[in-house]
């Protein structure tokens, strides 16, 4: 394998996921790891949509909500296996993104932000209000994925935490691989191009509307799968997963890590997932410190952590 940025990122990710557990002092860290991976997966979708195509969404948690509730509802109501429910959720998200994306992606900047925000709020409102189906704001139980049992029968006995750590880790590697493939492909380049200049993109033959829609659908699928994984490992889910705060969290993770970079997405997810755990020592100062950290990172590493650091390293090289 040639040492391209892509293979370096993937290799680093694989090594990190495989070897980190050696240093885990307790089982709790598997949980944190799994959460980081799930968040990173959702944020990778944001990187494609916002980082490359330059389209801001404040409603992507809605798709996470669809993924999560697909896992909660499909097995109970229609007897679908939870694993298939993940696919079903992704499919519903994709179709919805496709339908919604067509009108709203004509909007630019903050107007798109507010439209996507509206979409997210509508989804979370349905999850909250349709109690008959979703059991409302108090949440709903989610069926067991069952894969852990299968592995156990096959002789691989993992604790719950371990199982989800490795499972989410593998899905993230897959997600990152796909995204990195996309980045350097014609589609990825076209997305980044239309971000730079829509007219110019059109004149070189790029179907801008269609490209944006593709990015929107792909990122929706990422969010949806992340939502499914969260629901399955928590075995319980509430409409918060589709809430505005979750959308903001995704975007924040992406920007913090570096919105144009997959490695940045993973890093940003790691930072914002770990931070609340670290900040518990500050007790009631937690929010204060969290806000301050966000501001400081953006001031000193304004393009996001990963790109800023890479630029520094590269600059030194020259």
């Amino acid at each position, binding site marked *: 394998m040639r040492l391209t940025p892509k293979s370096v990122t993937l290799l680093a990710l694989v090594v990190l996921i495989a070897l980190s557990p050696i240093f885990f002092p307790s089982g709790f860290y598997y949980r944190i790891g799994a959460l980081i991976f799930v968040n990173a997966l959702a944020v990778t979708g944001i990187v494609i949509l916002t980082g490359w195509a330059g389209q801001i969404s404040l409603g992507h948690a809605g798709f996470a909500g669809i993924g999560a509730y697909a896992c909660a509802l499909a097995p109970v109501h229609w007897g679908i296996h939870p694993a298939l429910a993940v696919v079903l959720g992704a499919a519903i998200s994709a179709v919805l993104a496709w339908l919604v994306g067509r009108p709203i992606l004509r909007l630019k900047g903050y107007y798109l932000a507010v439209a996507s925000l509206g979409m997210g709020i509508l989804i979370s409102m349905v999850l909250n209000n349709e109690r008959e189906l979703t059991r409302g704001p108090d949440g709903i139980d989610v069926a067991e994925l069952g894969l852990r049992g299968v592995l156990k029968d096959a002789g691989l006995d993992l604790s719950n935490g371990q199982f989800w750590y490795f499972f989410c880790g593998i899905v993230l590697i897959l997600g990152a691989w796909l995204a990195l493939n996309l980045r350097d492909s014609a589609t990825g380049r076209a997305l980044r191009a239309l971000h730079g200049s829509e007219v110019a993109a059109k004149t070189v033959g790029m179907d801008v509307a269609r490209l944006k829609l593709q990015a929107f659908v792909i990122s929706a699928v990422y969010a949806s799968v992340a939502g499914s994984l969260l629901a399955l490992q928590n075995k319980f889910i509430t409409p918060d997963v589709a809430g505005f705060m979750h959308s903001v969290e995704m975007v924040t993770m992406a920007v913090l890590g570096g919105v144009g970079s997959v490695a940045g997405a993973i890093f940003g997810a790691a930072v914002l997932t770990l931070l609340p755990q670290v900040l518990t020592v500050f007790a009631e100062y937690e929010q204060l410190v969290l806000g301050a950290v966000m501001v400081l990172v953006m001031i000193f590493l304004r393009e996001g952590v990963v790109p800023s650091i890479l630029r520094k390293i590269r*600059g*030194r090289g020259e």
Partner: protein
Amino acid sequence: MLLVEGLRARYGRIEVLHGIDLAVNSGEIVTVIGANGAGKTTLLRCLSGVHPLAGGSVTFRGEPMSGVPAWRRVGRGLSQSPEGRQIFTNLTVEENLRLGAYLYADDRVEKDMADAFQMFPILKEKRNLAAGGLSGGQQQMLAMARALMGRPSCLLLDEPSMGLAPIIVAQIFDVVKGLKALDVTVLLVEQNAYGALKIADRGYVMETGRITMDGPAEALIADPRIREAYLGI
């Protein structure tokens, strides 16, 4: 009037100006010519204070300019008409001109505006149009007019003739020449090297971040190296 010594400038870690020495005397028209990417624009950006120096110094009317922000330099009489026009696209033509005289609130503003409209009648026609709707050349005229509204004592012009019809180009050069009578000092960066040198008193030639030649304008026009490399004659 304007003294530049050992000026260096960087983008990131890449140095693009490697020690520029240059002087412009009061009332002079001095032109800088050079190939694409030589660093002419960067030089002007350093002088007007929108790009930080990485070394050397800029002195304007005997005062060191280090640490003086761009907007304050304008108040001291050092104005720039930047590359790429940089007009306020969302504001009307008239608003652009008024903002050109942002620092002044006297009767002369109206008079200056009338002058500007006389110089470029098309701007008067379009005074209530958002400047973004102007054609490229009209925007270029607006940029020039706006710079003049600032009552500069020293004007830095970055390719003022770019995108202008030949008739207007001639007119622009006339205007620049006319500034001399108004005691305005001009530092002119031009790709239309011949036209620029013809109205200038002196000229500098820039190559990849360095001054490689300088002298009286006529001497430069006559220099065979210049003729071949920049004038295409």
